[in-house]
């Protein structure tokens, strides 16, 4: 399943990039350069070839571990990615951890609380978190926490404090989503017969919650978190840019602006692979948690 998906993704990525109007040469040559210079460069990067030929050249090189050379930045794409990826992974990983931990905790509280006030606050937060767009939230947070209160730096990637605002921005929507899914799943599973029977066995509510209800509630949460990997990376693209952080997102946006085909393709391919990897890990995690799924896969 993963292999045909990867192949189609590579085709789509390649085509989308080449469908953009303009080309990298425009960003490379000085205004007023001669047509010959231009043609030399076009020939050098093989941009005169039919798209199909270009695609197979690109994909063939990738199979040999060669992502090509950035046309505008004039460095190997693999180097650029290797340089930027750690920043993105740190940001994405922290945002992922934040949205899972905070989301599961809030969801559990809102499903188990008996206070109507707490429940309404949670609901309001979940609604807000699911609807507010990340880039706008980012600007608000910069204005408030970085400019007015000066708790965190406005931009950049120096130290852990610079990670706080971007992580909050990307994670916010995730927290709300995960909280909502956790809450619904907990309320659902609580109605099951076996839960009544667990109470009838005299088990304390706390034990029932943590040992029996949570594992069930985590099944849909794991699915949503796996899908969330892609969302977080996608969100990171704009948020990295807003916060002026280095990373795959910033690299990608700059490369799109310059129509630097190999870089855009390489970045998109990395993002797509991470999304697929996330889904794969999600499936594996679910099989580890649910014996019924293990059975059907055999």
């Amino acid at each position, binding site marked *: 399943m993963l292999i045909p998906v990867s192949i189609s993704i590579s085709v789509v990525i390649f085509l989308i990039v080449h469908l953009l109007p303009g080309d990298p040469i425009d960003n490379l040559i000085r205004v007023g350069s001669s047509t010959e210079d231009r043609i030399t460069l076009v020939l050098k990067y093989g941009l005169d070839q039919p798209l199909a030929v270009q695609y197979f050249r690109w994909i063939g090189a990738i199979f040999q571990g060669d992502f090509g050379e950035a046309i505008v930045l004039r460095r190997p794409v693999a180097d650029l990615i290797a340089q930027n990826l750690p920043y993105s992974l740190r940001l994405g990983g922290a945002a992922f951890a934040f949205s899972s931990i905070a989301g599961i905790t809030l969801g559990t509280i809102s499903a188990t609380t008996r206070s109507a006030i707490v429940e309404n606050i949670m609901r309001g937060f979940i609604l807000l978190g699911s609807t507010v767009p990340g880039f706008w939230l980012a600007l608000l947070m910069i204005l408030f926490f970085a400019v007015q209160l000066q708790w965190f730096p406005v931009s950049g990637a120096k130290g852990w404090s610079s990670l706080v605002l971007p992580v909050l921005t990307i994670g916010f929507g995730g927290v709300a989503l995960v909280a909502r899914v956790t809450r619904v799943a907990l309320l659902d599973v609580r109605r*099951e*017969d*076996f*839960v*009544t*029977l*667990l*109470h*009838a*066995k*005299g*088990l*304390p509510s706390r034990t029932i919650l943590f040992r*029996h209800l949570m*594992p*069930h509630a985590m099944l849909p949460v794991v699915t949503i978190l796996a899908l969330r990997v892609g969302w977080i990376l996608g969100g990171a693209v704009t948020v990295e840019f807003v916060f002026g952080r280095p990373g795959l997102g910033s690299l990608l946006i700059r490369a799109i602006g310059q129509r630097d085909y190999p870089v855009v393709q390489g970045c998109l391919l990395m993002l797509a692979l991470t999304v697929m990897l996330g889904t794969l890990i999600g499936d594996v995690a679910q099989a580890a*948690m*649910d*014996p*019924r799924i293990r*059975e059907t896969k055999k």
Partner: protein
Amino acid sequence: MLEVRDLEVAFGQIAPLCGVSFALEKGETLGIVGESGSGKSLTAMSVMGLLPLSGGRITAGSIIFDGQELTKLPEAAYRKLRGGRLGLITQNPMTSLDPLQKIGPQVDAVARLHLGITGQQARARTIEILGTLRIPEPALICDRYPHQMSGGMKQRIVIAGALAANPDLLVADEPTTALDVTVQAQIIRLLDDLVKERALSLVLITHDMSVVAQTCDKVVVMYAGRAIEQGPVEAIFAEPQHPYTQALIGCIPKGLSEDEHLVGIPGTVPTVMNYPKGCPFHPRCIRAEDICTKTSPSLLPRGDGAVSCHFPGAAP
């Protein structure tokens, strides 16, 4: 052992159960019968103290178990009774076990919690109980997951969980309804044997009159949240006084001959939202007269039992 007196249950403003009373001695089996929606399961949940789970509460009456008033018992003390001295068997074995956990730990938990024994001992006990419930290869079963078992086996495992801490009273809420007919008979026989071997008291909730006839000492017939007739099984079956009880007994299939048709009771049980005024059974009753639509009859002793009807008596 167990005495329920004038039990009333409410969910918000709605009172689906009112005026249910019965008593049960050690080693006795009490059947509670009635159609779906008559309040049988609510009675079971009240005894187990599990009404708050579904948002209900006991508004009046008392439940006395072994000299202890249960309706005012604090939750912590109730928790010790549940599983320890009160065992529950639920209706649908397919959904009554945690699908993510192995069988063994699910049964062990009860003994660990109530008998204070640990790991190995609890497992040995589980294996022993599974064995007495005629489950083949109990040691292997402990490492299986519920979805790998048949319905009958699952119900035995549920029963094992209910028995693990040697309870005095077992509440079985339609333990065979979700099972195949052949398995039903096995489970009923199993419960019957357990009651005799362990001197258990059993509250058996069912809608099957023939099950009651086979296994119970006493029976309570419920309709629309009330006990309408109760007494010793022999007396009820020999001379049912309430027209509803008579109709229920009339529904037991009798033979295989061609001219025997299955009998039903016309009409349906009213839902909680529209319990009729007066006697709740009057819209479906063949004996109903004016008074039945106006005043609700009270449960009065008659013969060996008690009946709640304006015109009690043997079937014409």
